[in-house]
Protein backbone atom coordinates (compact mmCIF):
# COMPACT_ATOMS: atom_id res chain seq x y z
CA UNK A 1 0.00 0.00 0.00
CA UNK A 2 2.81 2.35 0.81
CA UNK A 3 5.26 3.54 -1.72
CA UNK A 4 8.17 5.85 -1.70
CA UNK A 5 7.86 8.70 -4.13
CA UNK A 6 10.53 10.16 -6.34
CA UNK A 7 12.69 8.40 -8.87
CA UNK A 8 16.44 8.58 -9.18
CA UNK A 9 16.39 11.78 -11.22
CA UNK A 10 14.48 13.69 -8.57
CA UNK A 11 16.77 12.27 -5.89
CA UNK A 12 19.75 13.76 -7.69
CA UNK A 13 18.01 17.10 -7.66
CA UNK A 14 17.13 16.74 -3.98
CA UNK A 15 20.65 15.79 -2.99
CA UNK A 16 22.10 18.83 -4.68
CA UNK A 17 19.53 21.00 -2.90
CA UNK A 18 17.92 22.05 -6.18
CA UNK A 19 14.23 21.37 -6.77
CA UNK A 20 13.49 21.15 -10.46
CA UNK A 21 10.48 23.01 -11.86
CA UNK A 22 8.79 19.76 -12.95
CA UNK A 23 9.16 18.37 -9.41
CA UNK A 24 7.78 21.50 -7.80
CA UNK A 25 4.75 22.07 -10.02
CA UNK A 26 1.95 19.96 -11.46
CA UNK A 27 1.79 19.73 -15.27
CA UNK A 28 0.22 22.87 -16.70
CA UNK A 29 -1.77 20.88 -19.28
CA UNK A 30 -3.57 18.92 -16.56
CA UNK A 31 -4.24 22.03 -14.49
CA UNK A 32 -5.58 23.81 -17.59
CA UNK A 33 -7.81 20.85 -18.44
CA UNK A 34 -9.49 20.91 -15.03
CA UNK A 35 -9.96 24.68 -15.24
CA UNK A 36 -11.43 24.36 -18.74
CA UNK A 37 -14.10 21.93 -17.51
CA UNK A 38 -15.44 24.54 -15.10
CA UNK A 39 -15.61 27.39 -17.61
CA UNK A 40 -18.36 27.95 -20.18
CA UNK A 41 -17.44 26.60 -23.64
CA UNK A 42 -16.65 30.01 -25.14
CA UNK A 43 -14.41 31.12 -22.27
CA UNK A 44 -10.62 31.20 -22.45
CA UNK A 45 -7.84 30.85 -19.89
CA UNK A 46 -4.72 32.98 -20.15
CA UNK A 47 -1.31 31.34 -19.78
CA UNK A 48 -0.59 33.49 -16.73
CA UNK A 49 -3.75 32.29 -14.97
CA UNK A 50 -2.80 28.65 -15.55
CA UNK A 51 0.69 29.31 -14.21
CA UNK A 52 -0.78 31.20 -11.26
CA UNK A 53 -3.03 28.24 -10.48
CA UNK A 54 -0.05 25.90 -10.83
CA UNK A 55 1.83 27.83 -8.14
CA UNK A 56 -1.24 28.01 -5.98
CA UNK A 57 -1.88 24.28 -6.12
CA UNK A 58 1.72 23.45 -5.16
CA UNK A 59 1.42 25.79 -2.21
CA UNK A 60 -1.87 24.16 -1.20
CA UNK A 61 -0.40 20.63 -1.33
CA UNK A 62 2.64 21.73 0.69
CA UNK A 63 0.47 23.51 3.25
CA UNK A 64 -1.80 20.51 3.89
CA UNK A 65 1.02 17.94 3.76
CA UNK A 66 3.07 19.93 6.24
CA UNK A 67 0.22 19.89 8.76
CA UNK A 68 -0.38 16.16 8.24
CA UNK A 69 3.35 15.50 8.59
CA UNK A 70 3.47 17.37 11.89
CA UNK A 71 0.67 15.17 13.24
CA UNK A 72 2.53 12.02 12.20
CA UNK A 73 5.74 13.29 13.80
CA UNK A 74 3.98 13.97 17.11
CA UNK A 75 2.40 10.52 17.03
CA UNK A 76 5.72 8.93 16.02
CA UNK A 77 4.37 7.47 12.81
CA UNK A 78 6.32 7.24 9.58
CA UNK A 79 3.47 7.03 7.08
CA UNK A 80 1.06 9.81 6.18
CA UNK A 81 -2.34 8.30 5.40
CA UNK A 82 -5.74 9.52 4.26
CA UNK A 83 -6.96 10.23 7.78
CA UNK A 84 -3.99 12.54 8.35
CA UNK A 85 -4.86 14.49 5.21
CA UNK A 86 -8.50 14.81 6.32
CA UNK A 87 -7.41 15.90 9.79
CA UNK A 88 -5.00 18.47 8.33
CA UNK A 89 -7.72 19.94 6.12
CA UNK A 90 -10.04 20.32 9.10
CA UNK A 91 -7.26 21.73 11.24
CA UNK A 92 -6.38 24.35 8.62
CA UNK A 93 -9.98 25.50 8.29
CA UNK A 94 -10.89 23.63 5.11
CA UNK A 95 -13.86 22.01 6.84
CA UNK A 96 -15.95 22.05 3.66
CA UNK A 97 -13.30 19.84 2.09
CA UNK A 98 -12.66 17.54 5.03
CA UNK A 99 -16.18 16.12 5.25
CA UNK A 100 -16.68 15.07 1.59
CA UNK A 101 -13.14 13.68 1.56
CA UNK A 102 -13.86 11.56 4.61
CA UNK A 103 -16.75 10.05 2.69
CA UNK A 104 -14.46 9.58 -0.33
CA UNK A 105 -11.93 7.85 1.92
CA UNK A 106 -14.57 5.54 3.32
CA UNK A 107 -15.71 4.58 -0.19
CA UNK A 108 -12.10 4.11 -1.28
CA UNK A 109 -11.39 1.77 1.64
CA UNK A 110 -14.53 -0.24 0.99
CA UNK A 111 -13.46 -0.72 -2.63
CA UNK A 112 -9.95 -1.75 -1.59
CA UNK A 113 -11.40 -4.26 0.87
CA UNK A 114 -13.71 -5.58 -1.82
CA UNK A 115 -10.78 -5.95 -4.20
CA UNK A 116 -8.75 -7.81 -1.59
CA UNK A 117 -11.61 -10.20 -0.82
CA UNK A 118 -12.56 -10.78 -4.46
CA UNK A 119 -9.38 -10.85 -6.54
CA UNK A 120 -9.96 -10.95 -10.32
CA UNK A 121 -10.14 -14.52 -11.63
CA UNK A 122 -7.46 -15.55 -14.11
CA UNK A 123 -7.87 -17.96 -16.97
Amino acid sequence: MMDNVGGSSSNIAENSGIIREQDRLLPIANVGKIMKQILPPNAKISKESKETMQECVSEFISFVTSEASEKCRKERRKTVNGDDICWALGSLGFDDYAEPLRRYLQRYREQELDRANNPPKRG
Partner: protein
Amino acid sequence: MDQDVQDRALPIANVGRIMKQILPPSAKISKEGKQLMQECVTEFISFVTGEASDKCHKENRKTVNGDDICWALSSLGFDNYAEAIGRYLHIYRQGEREKINHTKKYENPQNQTQINRAPPPPLLLSRVENPPPTNQSG
Protein backbone atom coordinates in the same frame (compact mmCIF):
# COMPACT_ATOMS: atom_id res chain seq x y z
CA MET B 1 -10.15 4.74 -15.46
CA ASP B 2 -12.81 6.14 -17.78
CA GLN B 3 -12.20 9.26 -19.87
CA ASP B 4 -14.11 11.65 -17.61
CA VAL B 5 -12.20 10.58 -14.51
CA GLN B 6 -8.95 10.68 -16.45
CA ASP B 7 -9.63 14.25 -17.58
CA ARG B 8 -10.30 15.31 -14.02
CA ALA B 9 -7.26 13.63 -12.51
CA LEU B 10 -3.87 15.15 -11.88
CA PRO B 11 -0.89 12.78 -12.21
CA ILE B 12 -0.54 11.03 -8.87
CA ALA B 13 3.25 10.75 -9.23
CA ASN B 14 3.55 14.53 -9.41
CA VAL B 15 1.21 15.03 -6.46
CA GLY B 16 3.26 12.53 -4.46
CA ARG B 17 6.51 14.23 -5.42
CA ILE B 18 5.34 17.60 -4.11
CA MET B 19 4.15 15.97 -0.88
CA LYS B 20 7.45 14.13 -0.52
CA GLN B 21 9.42 17.40 -0.61
CA ILE B 22 7.65 18.53 2.56
CA LEU B 23 8.10 15.32 4.54
CA PRO B 24 11.23 14.29 6.42
CA PRO B 25 13.43 11.90 4.40
CA SER B 26 12.40 8.83 6.40
CA ALA B 27 8.66 9.47 6.04
CA LYS B 28 6.35 7.71 3.61
CA ILE B 29 3.00 8.49 2.02
CA SER B 30 0.32 5.84 1.67
CA LYS B 31 -1.36 5.35 -1.69
CA GLU B 32 -4.68 6.47 -0.20
CA GLY B 33 -3.01 9.63 1.13
CA LYS B 34 -1.84 10.56 -2.35
CA GLN B 35 -5.18 9.72 -3.95
CA LEU B 36 -7.01 11.78 -1.39
CA MET B 37 -4.74 14.75 -2.03
CA GLN B 38 -5.22 14.27 -5.78
CA GLU B 39 -8.99 14.46 -5.30
CA CYS B 40 -8.66 17.43 -3.00
CA VAL B 41 -6.48 19.43 -5.37
CA THR B 42 -8.84 18.80 -8.29
CA GLU B 43 -11.67 20.14 -6.16
CA PHE B 44 -9.56 23.15 -5.13
CA ILE B 45 -8.82 24.06 -8.77
CA SER B 46 -12.50 23.72 -9.68
CA PHE B 47 -13.59 25.78 -6.69
CA VAL B 48 -11.25 28.71 -7.41
CA THR B 49 -11.79 28.60 -11.19
CA GLY B 50 -15.56 28.61 -10.71
CA GLU B 51 -15.36 31.79 -8.67
CA ALA B 52 -13.00 33.47 -11.16
CA SER B 53 -15.28 32.41 -14.01
CA ASP B 54 -18.31 34.03 -12.35
CA LYS B 55 -16.41 37.30 -12.07
CA CYS B 56 -15.49 37.22 -15.77
CA HIS B 57 -19.08 36.40 -16.69
CA LYS B 58 -20.42 39.36 -14.69
CA GLU B 59 -17.88 41.67 -16.30
CA ASN B 60 -18.62 40.31 -19.80
CA ARG B 61 -15.07 39.10 -20.29
CA LYS B 62 -14.12 35.91 -22.10
CA THR B 63 -10.62 35.34 -20.71
CA VAL B 64 -9.75 34.39 -17.14
CA ASN B 65 -6.46 36.00 -16.15
CA GLY B 66 -4.14 35.94 -13.14
CA ASP B 67 -5.91 38.81 -11.39
CA ASP B 68 -9.18 36.87 -11.52
CA ILE B 69 -7.50 33.91 -9.81
CA CYS B 70 -6.13 36.23 -7.11
CA TRP B 71 -9.52 37.84 -6.64
CA ALA B 72 -11.20 34.42 -6.42
CA LEU B 73 -8.73 33.24 -3.77
CA SER B 74 -9.39 36.32 -1.69
CA SER B 75 -13.14 36.09 -2.20
CA LEU B 76 -13.15 32.45 -1.04
CA GLY B 77 -11.25 33.28 2.13
CA PHE B 78 -7.75 32.25 1.03
CA ASP B 79 -6.38 35.69 1.87
CA ASN B 80 -2.85 34.51 2.65
CA TYR B 81 -2.76 32.77 -0.70
CA ALA B 82 -4.13 35.77 -2.56
CA GLU B 83 -1.43 38.00 -1.11
CA ALA B 84 1.41 35.60 -1.95
CA ILE B 85 0.03 34.84 -5.40
CA GLY B 86 -0.39 38.58 -6.03
CA ARG B 87 3.34 38.99 -5.41
CA TYR B 88 4.08 36.02 -7.66
CA LEU B 89 1.94 37.54 -10.41
CA HIS B 90 3.81 40.83 -10.17
CA ILE B 91 7.17 39.06 -10.57
CA TYR B 92 5.77 36.87 -13.35
CA ARG B 93 4.61 39.90 -15.32
CA GLN B 94 7.92 41.66 -14.87
CA GLY B 95 9.62 38.59 -16.28
CA GLU B 96 7.23 38.45 -19.22
CA ARG B 97 7.81 42.15 -19.97
CA GLU B 98 11.57 41.66 -19.92
CA LYS B 99 11.20 38.68 -22.24
CA ILE B 100 9.17 40.77 -24.71
CA ASN B 101 11.61 43.67 -24.56
CA HIS B 102 14.53 41.31 -25.09
CA THR B 103 12.83 39.74 -28.12
CA LYS B 104 11.95 43.15 -29.58
CA LYS B 105 15.50 44.34 -29.14
CA TYR B 106 16.86 41.49 -31.21
CA GLU B 107 14.07 41.38 -33.78
CA ASN B 108 13.71 45.07 -34.56
CA PRO B 109 16.50 46.19 -36.94
CA GLN B 110 16.08 49.83 -35.89
CA ASN B 111 17.38 48.95 -32.46
CA GLN B 112 20.60 47.56 -33.85
CA THR B 113 23.56 48.96 -35.66
CA GLN B 114 24.83 47.28 -38.79
CA ILE B 115 27.84 45.96 -36.90
CA ASN B 116 25.75 44.12 -34.30
CA ARG B 117 23.52 42.40 -36.80
CA ALA B 118 24.44 38.80 -37.44
CA PRO B 119 25.01 37.89 -41.10
CA PRO B 120 22.17 35.95 -42.73
CA PRO B 121 22.59 32.18 -42.74
CA PRO B 122 24.24 30.62 -45.81
CA LEU B 123 20.92 29.21 -47.01
CA LEU B 124 19.52 32.73 -47.44
CA LEU B 125 22.69 33.98 -49.11
CA SER B 126 22.48 31.24 -51.70
CA ARG B 127 18.96 32.37 -52.63
CA VAL B 128 19.89 35.95 -53.48
CA GLU B 129 19.02 36.44 -57.16
CA ASN B 130 21.79 38.85 -58.12
CA PRO B 131 24.63 38.55 -55.66
CA PRO B 132 27.05 41.47 -55.68
CA PRO B 133 30.16 40.73 -57.75
CA THR B 134 32.99 39.38 -55.67
CA ASN B 135 36.31 41.11 -55.90
CA GLN B 136 38.43 38.54 -57.71
CA SER B 137 41.79 40.17 -58.15
CA GLY B 138 44.69 37.99 -59.06
